[in-house]
């Protein structure tokens, strides 16, 4: 008798991956991960956007504290994913960005380079693609305060916060380390080598940032449950000297290790294996689109089915993930309707590639 004798099938590659793979078995998670009717807030990289419609269709309340005023619902949608997420923050690719956003909301951090002035417009460096931008400093300040207040409200109101870790690479201010979602000068602003620098966060950085985030967000919502995931979407581009494939593997490895450390450091913080389900060798070839970067609708469906298997949801077919084509999702056709300058981009990260061509 040895320890392996008593282990379940999921512990053996030959019995759980080589054959009989079940995406829902991969995670080590409590049941239910979400209780029926709970209020859910989410943030993260562009992959995180996919979660929102599934949650809503499954009967969960998706927290929205910065929704469009009802009088303006018939005008064009906001760019990127700004008004898809709970409080209009758009994509948050790094743990540092999440932590800094939280600190800004709580009045603990004020970026020195907090706005960029354009021709009659004032741009938010942390939401650089906003379609409905400010035109004056006063408007910018009032809108930014309203936005930050809405983020706090979302943290206070939600039962569960889901964060999808996307990147370790980022651009930040040399003045105070403020992290931007996109390199200045790509989506908006002007790149200045003296004021903007590249950073590739380490495992220790990400662990520290996430642990700090957990502590600080629990200062406003002590009972919040946090679920971490790692986006399976590869990097659009790397600013390191590495090949983008090597940079991607490094980045995802860092995020995965950091997530593991953070769940062991904190109560009520869990990891959901979206990355493993899509990027593991068991994944079917159609998990990615022809560009080998965009996650296919089938893969998204597989991931979200596995997620919802861990949740207390209704049993009807309507609450299960359906063909992605029937769900609201940012498509190239929808993007084409957005402002002309950024019509081909699905997020700030992709914008860096698009605008560098």
């Amino acid at each position, binding site marked *: 008798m040895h320890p392996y004798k008593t282990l379940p099938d999921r512990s053996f590659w030959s019995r759980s991956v080589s054959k009989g793979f079940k995406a829902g078995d991969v995670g080590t998670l409590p049941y239910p991960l979400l209780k029926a009717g709970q209020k859910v807030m989410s943030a993260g990289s562009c992959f995180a956007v996919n979660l929102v419609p599934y949650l809503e269709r499954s009967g969960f309340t998706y927290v929205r504290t910065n929704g469009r*005023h009802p*009088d*303006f619902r018939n*005008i064009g949608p906001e760019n990127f994913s700004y008004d898809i997420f709970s409080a209009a923050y758009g994509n948050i690719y790094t743990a540092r960005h999440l932590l800094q956003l939280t600190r800004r909301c709580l009045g603990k951090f004020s970026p020195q380079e907090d706005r960029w002035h354009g021709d009659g417009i004032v741009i938010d460096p942390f939401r650089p693609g906003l379609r*409905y931008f*400010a035109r004056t400093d006063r*408007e910018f300040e009032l809108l930014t305060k309203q936005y930050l207040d809405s983020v706090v409200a979302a943290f206070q109101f939600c039962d569960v916060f889901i964060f999808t870790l996307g990147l370790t690479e980022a651009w930040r201010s040399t003045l105070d380390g403020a992290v931007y979602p996109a390199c200045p000068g790509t989506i908006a602003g002007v790149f200045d080598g003296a004021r903007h620098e590249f950073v590739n966060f380490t495992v220790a950085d990400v662990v520290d940032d996430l642990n700090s985030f957990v502590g600080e967000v629990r200062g406003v919502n002590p009972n919040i449950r946090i679920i971490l995931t790692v986006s399976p979407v590869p990097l659009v581009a790397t600013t390191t000297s590495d090949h983008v494939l090597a940079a991607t593997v490094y980045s995802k490895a860092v995020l995965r290790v950091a997530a593991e450390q953070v769940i062991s450091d904190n109560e009520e913080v869990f990891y959901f294996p979206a990355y493993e389900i899509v990027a593991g060798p068991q994944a079917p070839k159609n998990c990615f689109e022809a560009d080998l970067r965009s996650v296919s609708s089938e893969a998204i469906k597989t991931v979200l089915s596995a997620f919802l298997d861990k949740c207390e949801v209704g049993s009807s077919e309507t609450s299960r993930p359906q063909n992605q084509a029937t769900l609201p999702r940012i498509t190239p056709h929808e993007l084409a309707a957005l402002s002309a300058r950024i019509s081909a981009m699905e997020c700030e990260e992709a914008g860096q590639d698009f605008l560098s061509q």
Partner: protein
Amino acid sequence: MTEAKLAGVLAGSSHLVSFGVPLKSENDQTTLMPLNDAEEDFLCLNGPFPRGESYWAETERLASDYTLFIWWRGNQHIADYMFASDPPFDFVLSDQIGLPIMKDSVIVPEQMLREKFAPTFDRLETLVKNVAQRAHRGVFVCGTPPPKGDTAFIRATLAKEPYFVERLATLGRSAETVPLTAPETLYKLWRLIQNMSRDVAHRHGAKFIPIPAESQTPEGFLRKEFWFDITHANANLGRLFLRCLREHLQEARNASVQNFA
């Protein structure tokens, strides 16, 4: 009309009533009619109401023989926002950033309001652009009256105007109790509409003539002596405005003389 006595034609929205012009023609025909103007400087283009494509096409056609003074809509703020939204909203007007923001209101970006109003300027954009691309005698886009700053007057008048009576019925509210948008916010909305009219004019080389400053209170509202109904101004404003228009017409005449010299 001789070259020396180039006339101005007033055309456009219901705000022409302050010049003593009927809101619509009796037979829905689009026709030039004289204005009550002793100096015979101005004519008015009367026609069906609401104005249709034939009216605007005729306005464009007249540009080759007359200086055009166009009133474009100007009631969007009243039509859409006279009754307070739920929740109430406010915004920072980019050219008057010091104006107060209403307490407990949601702040929306001015850009959002611009996108909301933008379709209401589409035909004006086409009109001014079309005129600019051909020989013309000058085109001016004219300002429309600001809102009244007196909520009591507005409440008392709501029940007399069919448009608002219908709206109130739809809402199931009475004129006495329906929540109204703060006059200060209505003023900002009006001002934004004026700015957007001006921007359309300037994009195509036309001039924008704002409402005469003497017609406004220090806060920007329409002075009481110019009130007509909730939306429109009375003949006092027409007379005041006409003096201003005459100066611009003379500019156009001078330019015309130079062009033909």
